[in-house]
């Protein structure tokens, strides 16, 4: 694959783009789940995000891409190696690792290095996809078709930020902090509710309904396919602008304050919707803060809550499986009541 389709050139699908940007600004929001029709640019957006994000600094030669600055979160190897001397660093692109369907568990979590074991009789750990995804994104297309035990494993690692491998006499733990991005089509089957809840944000994508938008989608896609390099070059400026916005938002994030009024609002909204547990409120707050930061505001206000609430809450409602309205509409209704039209 040469250069992916530029993120800033994706037509419409604002909620999906917003959710991905929020996750890029504050990975602590927890993963993003994108559910929707076929041919709506789900995979395109995720793959485009990789190219958009600013490059990161890693310790050279580290399997897990440890950050040379924050030494508190290093992997065991780095801690041992660089106990005294300074590590060498390198700039690399943010990893966006594709988890292909049909990947086996040993490739995902890592396993005994067969080559070294067979050739030299050494017991060595060969890092898997989770190691590669550290500090980046792990993307699962058709997450609802992935084997249940793999999904369980991924969610667990994503939540704890650490991959613990206990197999073949190996006992390894290494950092695996990544944003889980799943996409799927609800017609192919549902995700278990327990799993839904573990994703921070959930967005629904639909096929654009007006002709002009559709024409624009096809036109851009077509001109990209005919000459990817030229198309990417043409979008370089707007990509650069968006990249700067992300960098600025990340820097601003710790300073963004959440007033008590906003906390109360979030809590009331969650109560009105009857979401289970506190994860909904926490995510809502975090997402709203990232949103404020993206927009250059220093305090979280109602308008931020309003924008992120559907994505943060829609998958946490008690499901009424045959409610025609769908949970997105229920959240919108609750927001309307609470915040006024």
């Amino acid at each position, binding site marked *: *694959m040469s250069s992916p389709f530029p993120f800033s050139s994706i037509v419409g699908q604002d909620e999906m783009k917003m959710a991905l940007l929020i996750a890029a600004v504050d990975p602590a929001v927890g993963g993003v789940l994108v559910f929707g029709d076929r041919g709506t640019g789900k995979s395109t957006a995720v793959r485009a995000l990789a190219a958009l994000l600013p490059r990161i600094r890693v310790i050279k030669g580290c399997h897990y891409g440890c950050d040379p600055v924050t030494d508190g979160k290093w992997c065991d190897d780095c801690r041992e190696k660089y106990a005294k001397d300074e590590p060498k660093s390198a700039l690399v692109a943010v990893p966006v690792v594709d988890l292909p369907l*049909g*990947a086996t568990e*040993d490739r995902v979590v890592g396993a005994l290095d*067969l080559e070294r074991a067979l050739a030299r009789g050494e*017991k060595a750990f060969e890092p898997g996809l989770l190691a590669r995804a550290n500090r980046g994104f792990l993307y699962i297309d058709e997450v609802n078709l992935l084997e249940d035990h793999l999904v369980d494993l991924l969610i667990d690692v994503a939540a704890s930020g650490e991959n613990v491998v206990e197999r073949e006499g190996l006992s390894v733990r290494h950092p695996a902090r990544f944003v889980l991005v799943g996409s799927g089509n609800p017609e192919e089957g549902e995700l278990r509710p327990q799993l839904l809840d573990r994703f921070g944000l959930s967005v629904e994508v639909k096929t654009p309904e007006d*002709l002009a938008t559709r024409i624009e989608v*096809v036109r851009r896609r077509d001109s990209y396919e005919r000459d990817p390099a030229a198309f990417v070059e043409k979008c370089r400026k707007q990509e650069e602008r968006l990249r700067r916005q992300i960098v600025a938002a990340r820097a601003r994030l710790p300073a963004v304050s959440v007033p008590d009024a906003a906390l109360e609002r979030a809590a009331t909204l969650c109560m009105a919707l009857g979401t289970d547990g506190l994860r909904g409120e926490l995510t809502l707050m975090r997402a709203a803060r990232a949103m404020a930061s993206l927009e250059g505001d220093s305090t979280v206000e109602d308008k931020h809550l309003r924008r992120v609430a559907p994505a943060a809450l829609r998958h946490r409602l008690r499901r009424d499986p045959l409610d025609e309205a769908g949970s997105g509409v229920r959240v919108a209704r609750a927001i309307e009541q609470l915040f006024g039209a």
Partner: protein
Amino acid sequence: MAETASAEITAWQDAALAAALFALDPAGTGGVALRASAGPVRDRWLSQLRGMLPGTDPWRRVPLNVADGRLLGGLDLAATLRSGRPVAERGLLAEADGGVVVLAMAERLSSATAARLVAVLDAGEVCMERDGVALRSPARIGVLALDEGVSAEENIPGALLDRLAFHVDLASLGIFDAQGDTISAEEIGVARNRLRRIVAGERTIESLCGAAMALGIDSTRAPLLALRVARAAAALAGRMEVTDADAALAARLVLAPRATRLPPVSEDHAEPPPAEVAASEDAQNDQPTPAPENGALEDVVLEAAKAAIPAGLLAQLAQGGGARRRSVSVGRAGQLLRSNKRGRPIGAMRGELKAGARLNVLETLRAAAPWQRLRQATAHDDLVHSRAKISVRREDFRITRFKQRAESTTIFVVDASGSAALNRLAEAKGAVELLLADCYVRRDRVALIAFRGSNAELLLPPTRSLARAKRGLAGLPGGGGTPLAAAIDAAVALADAVRRRGETPTIVMLTDGRANIARDGAQGRARAEEDALGAARKMAAAEFAVLFVDTSPRTQPQAQKLAAEMHARYLALPYAGAAAISQAVRASASDRSAGGGA
């Protein structure tokens, strides 16, 4: 190649044209879904296609039960053992780079395999992470999906179908229809060279998008594929830019089979999209067919597409029944290959290679690996061991463990006849909904058969998808006679299919038991009841778990008798609501799992 939509173009010519355009740009057009039973017509189509493909293009057949290792690539066992280090092996898809992958019996393809294919189609490369090896290899492929389905329920998984430009149906053609000129591989080769430089105007894009929308096609991939096909058509005709005829052809081949509704007729001519007003007239001069009065390209395109919509579908679309047809065979997530040891692999354990056990080669190698030096050091006098690079011993054997999910499917057989419809239909719907909510948590499946008039209809094939269940329930009409025998037969057939898939069916009959339509559709209470009793006995013989919910206001002796013949649990629920029915079903299902039988 400048034909446009007209009555003279036969289905075969269109099919042949699709083959030519696919041969011209296999990866760009995504592929062909070919619906036809195995036979001379299909063979002729296939040989024409092969004749058009340059001989150097790879052509790979993928069997239905292909293992991931062969499809995507994996560990090359022989080479690994020979060299003593892991050697990756390319899969079928990577081998087919630049050519065509043929899927046999694609209608039975599992959605998991389809998803793998889709990922490769989207990325243009195989990204393999398996068995301790990682490999990326280019795979720009076109997919030829041979669909031998006969009923509407059998279909290629939607995600894959969406990415294949051509949906060709040869089912209605005889061998004498299959006549026509062929195009040589050289011509295709020349056209391929031209393809990259073909220009498509804004108007083409706009008109294809407009036509797709008017035909109710949601996916934005459809117009994109149509655009590529239009370009290929221009290349084939020896033109350097896409003309209206090419666009019309693309609409006919790509958009028409995807139509879910008829374009609104009145608006067609009344208000052309503003962008079309400025369109020049001269491009249409080379067309034999008279262009519509206003000359808008979108109309030409739309007309072409409309003319190509099959007649049967047209009637169906006119009734608004198109939407349901589209997604019939999806939702089989998690279903695994059949074998004597089936189920989901859940890791490996140390074990003996007894009958049926499957050796997990990779884990076995891993288990043997740490001991290699030691074994080689101690086994010098043993010839057998010293010759092998790796010595594997019995204690290293690792067996794959499988876990089979005890899935259950609840089949609702709902009486929608005139006698039952008024007071019961709503409650039956409510009960199905409640159970569905339950099943959604347990990941069980639900199916729905409704019977009224002269036959029973499968409204909802076994599904876990809420979206589909919603659609199936919304369209449940009521009124007419009570063809009970047909309904029981349908339930038995479905339950049998479910059981053959290794799942446990539970049948729930919601009826008042007053049959008045016999099995052959004739009216008359006496024969109808006799037929129903016969069908009930058949059901009992198959030993399914059955719950009979008598929905008549007063308990009926006929209903009780019927239930007894079915060996069903009988439940009189004259005034029960949806919640009560749902509770009874749950109780009956747990009875069954506790005691077995009904």
